[in-house]
């Protein structure tokens, strides 16, 4: 059953043709990956130590990133959606800038901020001997920098489309701020938060530019699946293809699982 039979009439032939060209443009590279995949070397690939360490590193770091994104991102979304602080538009642009910047720019900026000689990292290193670059923590920082905006944007949009009267009513009935947030606000924005969470995780999993710049590339410590894929491209094309397919499979699964949900949320519509 289509929602609006009048509008959703059969598209005209040129539109259909152009649309299909567009679709095949996206489909072709993935079809090519599947077609060229060296399935015979799959058992060897699965057992490969480097692949296993890259994969477990990727999973662990992207999950930690997602957790930290919730801790900082949801309050940030709340500030952007509800508070009356001056320059909120500027703040929002700042907090989502890393979505559109080349990640390698993020990596360089992170170096200058949090590296041993960085404006924050420098004093930290002098005082505690803590140095972030080349550590697994640096991988998480790089991922968080690039991926957290996905959660912030989706949750912020959901908060803005939420009718404040509901929360107001709960508060009038004697609910504490925390109670209202937990029992009224959270359940209403939950679908958006889940979409944002999954997108953040998928983006963190695929992070490359900021990671290789800020965290370097070392097996087991900082060499995540995207970095391993890039390296494999130069000396082991079979492995590069299989690693790529792995990332494609996970990301595709995420997007299919989310269906159309996040698009409406992230770009202004209600959930």
């Amino acid at each position: 059953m289509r929602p609006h039979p009048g509008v959703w009439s059969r598209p005209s032939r040129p539109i259909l043709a152009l649309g299909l060209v567009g679709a095949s443009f996206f489909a072709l590279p993935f079809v090519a990956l599947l077609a060229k995949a060296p399935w015979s070397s799959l058992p060897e690939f699965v057992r490969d130590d480097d692949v296993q360490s890259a994969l477990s590193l990727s999973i662990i770091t992207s999950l930690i990133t997602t957790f930290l994104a919730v801790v900082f991102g949801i309050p940030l979304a709340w500030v952007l959606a509800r508070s009356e602080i001056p320059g909120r538009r500027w703040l929002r642009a700042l907090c989502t800038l890393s979505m559109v910047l080349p990640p390698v720019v993020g990596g360089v900026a992170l170096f200058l901020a949090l590296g041993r000689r960085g404006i924050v990292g420098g004093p930290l290193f002098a005082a505690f001997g803590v140095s972030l670059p080349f550590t697994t923590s640096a991988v998480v920082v790089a991922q968080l920098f690039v991926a957290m905006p996905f959660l912030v944007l989706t949750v912020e949009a959901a908060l803005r489309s939420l009718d404040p009267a509901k929360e107001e009513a709960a508060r009038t009935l004697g609910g504490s701020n925390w109670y209202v947030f937990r029992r009224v606000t959270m359940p209403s924005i939950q679908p958006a938060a889940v979409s944002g969470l999954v997108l953040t995780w998928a983006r963190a999993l695929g992070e490359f530019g900021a990671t290789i710049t800020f965290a370097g590339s070392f097996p087991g410590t900082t060499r995540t699946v995207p970095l391993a894929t890039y390296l494999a491209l130069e000396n082991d094309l079979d492995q590069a293809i299989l690693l790529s397919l792995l990332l494609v499979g996970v990301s595709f699964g995420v997007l299919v699982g989310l269906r159309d949900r996040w698009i409406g949320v992230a770009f202004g519509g209600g959930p």
Partner: protein
Amino acid sequence: MISLAGCTAVVATLSACGRSDSDADTVPVNVFAASSLTEAFARIEAAYEGEYPATDVVINFAGSSALAAQIREGAPANVFASADLATLEAAIAFGDVAGPPQVFATNTLAIAVELGNPKNIRNLRDLAAPELIVVLADTTVPAGKYAAEVLAASGVSVTPASLEQNVRAVLSKVALGEADAGIVYRTDLASESNAQAVDIPTDQNVVAEYAIGSVTSSDDRPGDAAATAQFIEFVLGPAGRSTLEAAGFGLP
């Protein structure tokens, strides 16, 4: 049909842009060169274009193995200058580059440290200290392979913090002050004002042989082959040799 024609026009325009940004009557020579050649080849490019204004030399610098992979995937290269013989020989074996390889320069390794050498690193053995942050190139690129050879020959075991994709990334980590030391080519340090060299004695060092060849898989246009051969000759000739020598390279 109209839309299809429009698409074709757009694609044609895009590929024309990709070709070259210079005048239509200059012949482009695309040179894929190892990142350790960055300064030397930039100078050779300027000298060459001064002598042959009809040629537009465009250089793509990256790790030798990245360049070899790009060429294998059909990147529009005319000349391949690798930081080792093995990578060029492999490209020849794939049929991507016309043999035989011609060695045009040699290089040795050095330890890159911060200015003033604050960690007082004097030799390869010092790199084994666990509190040092040492960055090496990955063994898939020549600089990393040579570094591993040098360390193994001296019996030094180093735990690097990172294995970078090309030698310039190693140097920049030291120059930024994020790494205490790295192993790079001696010539890399000539161009870096934020790092200095600790020499590795000849008996512990390796001699890296830089080899050059013309790429066979490029989509040749009239004049390309001649310009390509001329550029390679220029690198191998007196002008190329003196530029390379001034940049600190050894000559074959």
